[in-house]
C-alpha cells in the first residue's frame, strides 16, 4: 500500500490517498493528508468543516451531502473549494480521515 511521509508522521493510504486505518487519524495525520492536497496549514475554517464532517460521519456512517455541509457550516461551495482544492468529497473528507466515498455517488 502507498504511504505518506510528512515530518515525523508516516501513514498508510489507499490508491486514492485516503487513510486506510481511521483510528490513526489525529491533528498530525490531518496535516500529512492535507499536504497531499496542496494545503500546508489547517486554519479554523478548515477545522470547522472537518469537525462537522467527522461528527456527521460518526453518527450516520456517511459524509453529509454537500448542500447540508454548506448550510450547517455557513460556507459556500466555492469557499470549500478554496480551502480544499479537490472539493468536499475528495478533499475535505480525505483530510478529515474518512474513507473514500462509496456507492453510486
Amino acid at each position, binding site marked *: 500500500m502507498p504511504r505518506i511521509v510528512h515530518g515525523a508522521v508516516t501513514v498508510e493510504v489507499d490508491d486514492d490517498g485516503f487513510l486506510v486505518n481511521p483510528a490513526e487519524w489525529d491533528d498530525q495525520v490531518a496535516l500529512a493528508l492535507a499536504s497531499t492536497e496542496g494545503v500546508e496549514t489547517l486554519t479554523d475554517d478548515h477545522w470547522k468543516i472537518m469537525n462537522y464532517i467527522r461528527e456527521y460521519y460518526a453518527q450516520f456512517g*456517511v459524509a453529509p*451531502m454537500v448542500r447540508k455541509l454548506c448550510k450547517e457550516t455557513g460556507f459556500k461551495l466555492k469557499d470549500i473549494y478554496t480551502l480544499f482544492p479537490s472539493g468536499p468529497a475528495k478533499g475535505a473528507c480525505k483530510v478529515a480521515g474518512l474513507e473514500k466515498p462509496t456507492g*453510486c455517488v
Partner: protein
Amino acid sequence: MSEPLRPRDLARPAEQLAAIPDGGLPPLPHPYEDWPDPGVRPLSDESRARLEHSLDGVVGLKIPRPDSAAAREAYVEQFLAGLDRLLDREANWTFLQPLVLSLENCVKCNTCADACPIYESSGRNEVYRPLLRAETLRRLVHRRRGRLARLFDRFAGNDVAATWETVVRLADLSYRCTLCRRCAQSCAMGVDNGLIAREIRKLFSQELGWAPDELHRDGTVKQLVAGSSTGMNPAGFRDTVEFAQEEIAEQLGMSIEIPVDRQGADILVLHNAGEFLSWPENLQAFAILFDRAGLSWTLSSEIAGYDSVNYGLFYDDVQLARVGHAHAAAARKLGVRKVVIGECGHAHKAAMAVGDRTWLGEDNLPRESCFTLIAQLLREGRIELEPGRNPFPVTLHDPCNVVRSMGIVEPQREVIRAACPRFREMTPHGVDNYCCGGGSGFAVMSSLNFPDWRMAVAGRKKFAQILDAFAPEIDDLETPKYVCAPCSNCKGQIRDLLDHYQAWERARLHYGGLAELVVNALKGVPEGFLDWDEIALAK
C-alpha cells in the same frame, strides 16, 4: 487498428499485451477538434510492482501480483475448477442456459465488434474485440472436454493454454465490457457477449474472490451490513429525508411530507441511495410529484430498503440473491401492494427481471418502473404540465438496463415530450442506444487510471452523441442544455464526462434526471425547481 490478437495470445509472456496510444482515438465532434486527448495515465512504479496490469496497463480489478509460481498455479487450478462449476446445472442454476447458448451458437461473423462502443472508441484496439473475450472462454471450456478436443484445437490452431497470464488477462478483460449488450442485440444468432463477460466476472468473484472493491467490499457487503452501499445507516437516511423536506419548504414554500415506513401504503419506492447524497433534488422531485398525484406511497428505512442498488447483478450471483432478498423483505414488512423502482437502470433489471428468480413465493410482489408510472399519471390527468417552464434544449440518454434489458422505451419519451418542448433524440437511441460508458459498475470504479480509460474510451461514444444531439446550439453559450440521464450510475458517468471534457465551459452542457424536469414544469408547483443560476454558480 492494432495487431490482430487471438485467444492463445493471452498466454503471451509480455508485461503488457496492449496499450491505449496517445492521440490514437477517434476524433470528437465540434467543438472538440482541438481537444488534447490526455489518454490513459501510466501507472506508478509502486502500482506496477503491486498490481496485475498485463492486459492493457489499466487497473480496475486490482489483482495483487502473486509472489510465487505456486501461488499463481493455485489460482489457475481454482479457475479451472470454477469453469466446471460455471457449466454445472446445479451450481449455475441462474444463467446456465443463456450461457451455453451463447457459447455454442457463435458463427464468428464479428457483427458484435461493429456494435461495441468500446471497440470502436478505442480506435478498434484488438484487445477489446468482443470475440477475443468470448472466444477465449469458449476455447478454455472446449479444452476441458478432454484430450481429443485439445488435439483438435491444436491442429486447428485454436489452442489456448490455461496459464496464469491467460487467467489474469481474462479476468481484467471481463472488466473492459460495460455489459451494455448492444452486441447481443445485433447478433443474428442471439449470442450475448455481455452475459459471457458477466459470467466470467462471476467465476472470478465466487471462486477466486476477485471483484472490484467498489462493487464488493464497499458495495454489496457494505450495503447488507450498514444498509446502503454509501455507508449511510438508517438514522442517516432519516436525517436525509428530513433535510429534503426542509429544502422543499425553503425553496418552493411547499409543505411536502416524505413518508418513511408507512405501514400499508400502496407503493414502496426504491431509490438508489447515491441520489440522496449526490442528487438530492431527485428524491425531492419524486416526493413532490407523488404528493401532487395523490399516490399512497412510502420509503423504507430497513437494511437495503432505502438503497435500490444491487451490484451483484454485475459480478456475483450469491450477492445478487442476498441483496434481492433484502429488498423483498423490506417490501413485505411494509405490506405494500407494489414496488416502484426509481431512476436507477441496473436496479430495474435486478429487481424486475432477474428478481423473478430471487423474489420467490410470497416475496414475489409486483414491481414497476417509475417511467411507466409517471407516464400513466400523465395520461390519466393526475398531473398536468406547463412545458413552457422548460424552454431549454433537452436530450435523453437511455440507460441500457431500462431500454435494451427491459424493453421500457416509450413511457419516458411520452413524459419528456410532454415536459420539454425542445426535446430531441440522440442518434441512435432506444434499444439501439450507446452505453454511457459507466455501465456495470464502471461509473463507481474510480481508482488509479481506470477513470482515464472510462473517460477516453468507454464514454467517448456517448459524449460524441451528446455533442451531436445539441449541434444546432452547441456554440451558443447563452443557452444551457440538459442531458436527461434517468439512472444514478449513468448520471455519475455523464457528470464525470462533462467535467472531464469541460463541457459546461465549452458548450453549457448540464445533466440531471427525469423527475426534475417533470417537477420543474408541474402545474401547481411554484416555478424555479431547476435553478439555473445556482447550477451555473456551482460549475
